[in-house]
């Protein structure tokens, strides 16, 4: 017991308006899906939150037909200025229901309420606001005159940022004039189905957005569907490759936002305390369930001891526990399966000889939790330096010179993001230039904005989300 123990400060779970049953949203209505119902679980308590009726392959076809009808009859004919107003409405409604969405997201996903409240939900609203404005300005996007939508977009999103990834997908698709069939992740379908309610509230024409809860097989049948013109996927590189294979040889346009193993490079002249913050934010934000997580810390050898001492002190202050507690920094791992994967990789790190340090923070008895862990003495050849752990586990490697830092940072098939910490401006720009990654954060980390394109090099995928560049993914250009 410390002398200043923060009393529990839980957000009320009643705000989530949790319902016992949720259903797929097709053609503007909530309908009974004919798939096997699933039970979505609160990963912090392992209790069942709700039963979710899922879609079957036949429902995929119904949803695609609804999207096609909406595209042909309404959405593709509507002037951009009118489409924009629907998007603005949706943005406002997300803001109005932000507390409900935040609490529900934390319940279903396990992420701390302060993150769902301060990051996920407001950024989701921002994406709709931003893209709303594009709907009638596409001629100015630099993609040629009068760019045309693709048609029906099939979108598959992961469980790490359920609502935010939905916004990243749906907002640009609708702004450019496409209609959507979206499949949320199996373990986190709830906020997407509340979003469906928001579409109803906004009086979005039926069929423009369809939401199909289900497992991977439903995603696969959406990808395969002959009448889908566009596939957008965010998730693991393995599944991304399967989808790319499935789509091969068809006319479907594809964008993939896949895994990463980002290097966060700290030079000896870095603003160290803020570098520590950036490292912590980079790997422990959202329990490390972030594709662009700074999971490899590359520290210059001359400062590695000082940096590690500061880092351990800082990580020790992270509070792990009830995601609904406003003071929780680290919530629950999203599923038992993911927790097992993290544990497996951590074991490999130990057996391969890396030095493990784990925060002494208390671990709740129930639920899926994993205490923040830092591995030092990690080498490029170890699995924890190469494989995406997707959990609160940092691998610390060292370098001596800028060239070595670049070589090690780029020594991965991934290329989603990277971090640079130095106070030398020319070195920042040189490093930013050398790093093969779609997003480079210098003296900061994990910043996201709808105006700033996001996406990867190499096996981290292709296509961008956000900014003018992001529109390209949904236009026939």
């Amino acid at each position, binding site marked *: 017991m*410390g*002398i*200043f*123990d*923060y*009393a*529990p*400060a839980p957000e009320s779970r009643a705000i989530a308006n949790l319902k016992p049953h949720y259903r797929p949203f097709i053609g503007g209505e909530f309908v009974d899906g004919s798939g096997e119902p699933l039970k979505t679980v609160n990963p912090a308590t392992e209790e069942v939150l709700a039963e979710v009726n899922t879609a079957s392959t036949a429902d995929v076809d119904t949803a695609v037909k609804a999207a096609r009808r909406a595209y042909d009859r309404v959405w593709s004919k509507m002037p951009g200025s009118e489409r924009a107003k629907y998007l603005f409405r949706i943005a406002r409604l997300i803001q109005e229901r932000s507390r409900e969405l935040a609490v529900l997201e934390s319940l279903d996903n396990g992420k701390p309420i*302060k993150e769902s409240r*301060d990051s996920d939900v407001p950024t989701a609203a921002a994406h709709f606001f931003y893209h709303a404005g594009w709907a009638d300005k596409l001629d100015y996007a630099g993609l040629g005159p009068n760019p045309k939508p693709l048609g029906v977009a099939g979108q598959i999103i992961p469980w790490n940022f359920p609502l935010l990834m939905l916004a990243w997908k749906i907002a640009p698709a609708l702004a450019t004039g496409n209609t959507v069939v979206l499949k949320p992740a199996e373990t986190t379908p709830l906020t997407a189905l509340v979003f469906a309610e928001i579409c109803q509230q906004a009086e979005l024409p039926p069929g423009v957005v369809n939401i199909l809860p289900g497992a991977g097989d439903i995603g696969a049948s959406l990808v395969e569907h002959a009448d889908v013109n566009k596939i957008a996927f965010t998730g693991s590189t393995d599944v991304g490759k399967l989808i790319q294979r499935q789509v091969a040889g068809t006319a479907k346009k594809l964008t993939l936002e896949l895994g990463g193993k980002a290097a966060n490079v700290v030079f000896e*002249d*870095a*603003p*160290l*305390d*803020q570098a520590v*913050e*950036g490292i912590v934010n980079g790997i422990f934000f959202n329990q490390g369930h972030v594709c662009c997580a700074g999971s490899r810390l590359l520290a210059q050898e001359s400062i590695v001891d000082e940096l590690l*001492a500061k880092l351990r*002190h800082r990580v020790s*202050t992270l509070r792990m526990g009830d995601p609904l507690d*406003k*003071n929780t920094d680290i919530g629950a791992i999203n599923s038992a399966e993911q927790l097992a994967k993290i544990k497996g990789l951590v074991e490999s790190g130990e057996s391969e000889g890396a030095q493990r340090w784990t925060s002494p923070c208390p671990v709740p008895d129930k639920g899926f939790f994993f205490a923040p862990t830092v591995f030092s003495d990690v080498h490029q050849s170890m699995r924890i330096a190469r494989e995406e752990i997707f959990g609160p586990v940092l691998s610390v490697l060292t370098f001596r010179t800028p060239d070595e830092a670049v070589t090690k940072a780029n020594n991965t098939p991934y290329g989603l993001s990277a971090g640079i910490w130095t*106070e030398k401006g020319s070195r920042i720009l040189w490093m930013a230039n050398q790093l093969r990654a779609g997003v480079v954060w210098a*003296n*900061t980390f994990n910043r996201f904005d709808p105006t700033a394109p996001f996406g990867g090099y190499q096996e981290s995928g292709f296509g961008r989300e956000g900014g003018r560049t992001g529109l390209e993914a949904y236009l026939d250009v």
Partner: protein
Amino acid sequence: MTATTATSPQTSAAETPLPPALQDATRDDASLRRFLRGLPGVDQVGVEQRAAGLATRSIKKAAKLWAIDTAISMVDLTTLEGADTHGKVRALAAKAKRPDPDRPDTPQVAAVCVYPDLAATAVEALEGTGINVASVATGFPSGRTSLDIKLADVKIAVDAGAAEVDMVIDRGAFLEGRYGQVFDEIKAIKAACGPAHLKVILETGELATYDNVRRASWLALLAGGDFIKTSTGKVSPAATLPVTHVMLQAVHDWHAQTGELRGVKPAGGIRTTKDAVRYLVAVHEVAGEQWLTPHLFRFGASSLLNDLLLQRRTQADGHYSGPDYVTVD
């Protein structure tokens, strides 16, 4: 959880020799400059974001009560007006002793802070209470006078019985890069303080950058300041959370390198309980739990105390209180 009360600070600066790296830093002007300029930079956006993030901590119930009492016990109840009189100081001393006369369990404040010419009055009024008298000195608030006069100013305060001296650094010299001069002056004043504890006011509002705040913090710690203090309260901006973060980080790092505990005092602009609790959260999470004592953390404030008292009543009574229920002094 119990609030500690103010007694004399437990450690005194510069009792043990510094580690070689830090000794070397103060060898001469050039070494000092090299050392201070070699400190890691502070990224403005990063530190402000961290401070804003910590400020979202939600402190409720028992934790809040503890924080309120701890904050009261950390207050340097201050009057630093041209219009200050003996009567005003005696009234303040009375308030310091019994912040909330209706609630005798309310902790005393840590110190009463006055100008040197009123220190004797404050000492007399607080005799036997355990509440220290702190006196500003060294040509407060601008510090624009000669070292001789600054030393004489300190002597007035110390001779009057002040247990704590709040000096201002020469910001002009600091901004001109004459770190050695600032260092020597702090050392001379520390020597003139004798047993009195020295708080070194950096006047961070005039230093303008966090890099400067970090350098000035280290400079003051190297020169023997027992506390580093943000501001005089006469310059805006005075205390801010991110500035205090940088200073808390400095005393944390100082402790890591030397084993010595030095204190931090934000002053000026902290008016509400909510603010005070945010500062305590910062102390807790940036410096560490051991700084959560009046020996190592103070609030330089006047109106803050009444808001703490109001909130204390609200917590205890279960309904909101009003300004008529706390005393105006």
